[in-house]
């Protein structure tokens, strides 16, 4: 009983809105400029509402339950964020308004720049990037520009650990540099031997995800950053996992020169089915001049406005050696409002409590699942997440995918599958701090039951999910037939 496409519900002449009638004299629109047809669906308002409500009912979401999608920090996002971002005085302002008429919004951005810098231990922050990958591109371009500014144009290689997210090498390529893979060692850290071997005068920098995608805090962090610096490179921090060390450590003080924050993950914007996000970038002082602009700068002094005759306090400023804009206007402001709200509601202690609880929840799950699934680095204390393997003794043909799909039948969203690439049959589990003990326990119970089913009744898993709106989907057919538009 799938929901028909809107196009299938369309009937000529139906309409979902009324538009005001014209209150000015008409001006002819030259016929040559006009299109002849516009085959969009024609449906009434009630049809729109019902269509999307029924589609909504086919989705699982954080507001329904546990969503332990590793690396994605699917925490519960406070409802006040949604109210905040929709305040007319924030949602209805034009990005090109004269700064004197937008001082409240600019103050909020200035606050947020300063708070993120403080939390991350950075000198300056740009709020312009739209997501983590966007921040990565910025960071690599900044690194490149820094080298170039020093006349060092031979540094064309970025070292990327093999556990890194795909965006890291991809961003490196986009920036016109070469990604060089560095393996991990047996404890899940960056392999120092290999790192040393690769460091040379071609090294522009290292992209380090820390905690890394195994959920581990690199035990040699300070050594790593020092090695890179000593070799003349810079260290990029992929901050996707920052939730784990919020208030616990400041990357900017540990040798990370530039880092993106996934504001939508750590600082709570609902993920929207895949975005929007924000990939704010923090840098140490030496890199501040290279940030994309404009950023908000404060002149200090009063909170003047055009009306009061004094100059406005906050102004747009483009860093002098900026790599250039990466987006029109100033960033994903609606996401920034949510991040600001979230940080202001937590304060320093509250932020640290987030990290502590996120890490405790992960370690609790790791401890309890230790007997059920192989956990390659289960001997270590994990951070906000850990990576188990979808392998069950006595069930040789069961894969991570089967376990994931079967979890759906138990009412849970599955963990991240098959990432990081270095762990075969990876199940990357990130519970976040907003899950309670009972939920964690019921997840353990489900996995335990599934492990038994895997041996006793493996087809239950192979054919899972059984209770979802659709069953397993044919991805090969999708790619082969490539039907990517209605009726197309």
């Amino acid at each position, binding site marked *: 009983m799938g929901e028909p496409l809107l196009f299938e519900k369309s009937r000529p002449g139906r309409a979902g*809105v009324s538009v005001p009638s014209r209150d000015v004299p008409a001006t002819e629109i030259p016929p040559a400029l*006009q299109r002849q047809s516009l085959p969009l*669906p024609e449906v009434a308002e009630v049809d729109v509402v019902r269509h999307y409500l029924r589609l909504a009912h086919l989705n699982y979401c954080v507001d329904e339950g546990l969503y332990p999608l590793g690396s994605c920090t699917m925490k519960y996002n406070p409802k006040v964020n949604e109210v905040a971002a929709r305040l007319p005085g924030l949602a209805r302002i034009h*990005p090109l308004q004269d700064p004197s008429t937008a001082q409240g919004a600019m103050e909020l951005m200035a606050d947020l720049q300063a708070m993120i810098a403080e939390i991350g231990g950075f000198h300056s922050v740009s709020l312009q990037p739209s*997501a983590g990958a966007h921040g990565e591109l910025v960071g690599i371009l900044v690194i490149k520009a820094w080298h170039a500014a020093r006349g060092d144009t031979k540094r064309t290689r970025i070292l990327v650990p093999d556990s890194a997210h795909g965006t890291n090498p991809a961003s490196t390529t986009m920036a016109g540099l070469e990604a060089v893979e560095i393996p991990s060692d047996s404890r899940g850290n960056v392999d120092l031997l290999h790192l040393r071997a690769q460091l040379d005068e071609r090294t522009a920098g290292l992209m380090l995800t820390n905690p890394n995608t195994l959920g581990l805090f690199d035990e040699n962090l300070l050594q790593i950053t020092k090695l890179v610096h000593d070799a003349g490179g810079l260290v990029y921090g992929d901050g996707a996992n920052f939730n784990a060390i919020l208030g616990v450590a400041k990357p900017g003080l540990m040798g990370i020169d530039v880092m993106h924050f996934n504001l939508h993950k750590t600082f709570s914007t609902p993920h929207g089915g895949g975005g929007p996000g924000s990939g704010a970038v923090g840098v140490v002082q030496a890199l501040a001049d290279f940030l994309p602009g404009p950023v908000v700068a404060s002149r200090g002094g009063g909170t003047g406005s055009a009306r009061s005759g004094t100059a406005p306090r906050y102004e747009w400023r483009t860093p002098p050696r900026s790599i250039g804009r990466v987006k029109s206007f100033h960033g994903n402001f609606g996401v920034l409002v949510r991040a600001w709200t979230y940080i202001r509601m937590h304060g320093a202690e509250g932020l640290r409590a987030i990290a502590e609880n996120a890490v405790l929840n992960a370690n609790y799950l790791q401890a309890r699942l230790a007997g059920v699934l192989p956990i390659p680095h289960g001997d270590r204390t994990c951070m906000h997440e850990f990576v188990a393997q979808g392998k069950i003794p006595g069930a040789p043909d069961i894969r991570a995918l089967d376990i994931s799909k079967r979890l759906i039948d138990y009412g849970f969203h599955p963990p991240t599958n098959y990432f990081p690439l270095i762990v075969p049959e990876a199940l990357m589990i990130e519970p976040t701090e907003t899950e309670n003990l009972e939920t964690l326990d019921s997840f353990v119970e489900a996995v335990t039951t599934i492990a038994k089913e895997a041996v006793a009744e493996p087809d239950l898993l192979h054919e899972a999910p059984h209770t979802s709106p659709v*069953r397993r989907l044919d991805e090969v057919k999708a790619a082969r037939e*490539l039907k990517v538009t209605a009726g197309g």
Partner: protein
Amino acid sequence: MSFIPNTDADRARMLQTVGTSSTAELFHDVPASHRFPTLDLPPALSEQEVLAELDRRARRNAHEGPCFLGAGAYRHFIPSVVDYVISRSEFATAYTPYQPEISQGTLQAIFEYQSMIARLTGMEVSNASHYDGATSTAEAVIMALNVAQGERRGVVLSAGLHPHYREVVRTYTQGMKLEVTGDDADTGPSELAGSCTSSTACVVVQNPDFFGRIISPSDMAALAAAVHAAGALLVTVVNPISLGVLVPPGEAGADVAVGEGQSLGNAISFGGPYLGFFAFRREHVRKSSGRIAGETVDHDGHRGFVFTLSTREQHIRREKATSNICTNQSLNALAAAAYLAAMGPGGLRQVAELCWHKAHYAARQIAALPGYSVQDGEFFHEFVARCPRPVAEINRRLQEKHGIIGGYDLSLNYPDRKNQMLLCCTELNSREQIDGLCAALSEVGNG
């Protein structure tokens, strides 16, 4: 405020299971010298207090009076049903549909969004979104480079392309050793066609352009023919509301149609989050970037939707991916889909026509004011007014005395366009507002 459910008692039990005596101990891998720094942040606020703080900030932003700013971000009426749709938890609090079986709502909505964008632009394929109009343009350039298999390094940008977009294209491609040209002088489509060579990967034009000017379908077709003759792609940056009435780029021969989708049901929100739409001809699909939803069937033969052609993407192809994009603007695309669904072809056309009529009415009235004149040629809902004084001065007076937000000061980006104001009218600008603007302009211009 804390959004953490577990209590001290819960934590004690969990620590016991973990075999640690405190949560602080869990961080032993963090270098001791760096562990638990002080954070100098303002004290935590309750929900009531944080909303009061936000309200204080919101009040210091002018947002209630008439506004004639456009220049890439547009105020349009958003039917209530749009916010209803995007507020649903099932859409807002899910992520990228990695598990299609429990994400059909998101996937079908994206599939429908793609279909609507394709039809609106006259293209065959649309991706699921890029960050905004500017990055979508940059991604289009990169796609053109990939289509040319790295053989062509020339990119021709029209001077009529939004200055931010031109800058973003340059930022994105700064490491790629390209020649980005064309936008140093304000030339027409035929000159652009002329600057196309055998090393040109693409020509990028905006229509209506940054100054509001419309490139006619015949000029566009001629340009497309010339570009194609040179073996390059024609990338058009279009305003989606204008496509309610204007000939779509696909019909005029363009290969790629990108642009800012904010006007389609997304709040103007001080510049973001917006929506980069990205549509193109089917033959280029494997060189395209961004996610694409496709139709398939499930185990029982029922229709369903999945993301497809992921082998183009970073999570599979890593450094060989067509783009690094991961998180995109999915909820903004949903807003656009809900907006287009609610408007339908009739509603969208009506809105486009209102924009047209109001802008043209305003232009006529302003042209008649002493000291003012208006740029020639066809335009949609934006036009350039030449003013008797610096735009900054005029705008300051409009705001202070009349509570009106005037047009964009073109001298900010074009020093030679002194005293030129880019004005925009949409269905939100009533005749009364337009008449008020004209009266105020007249007063300010001569005061």
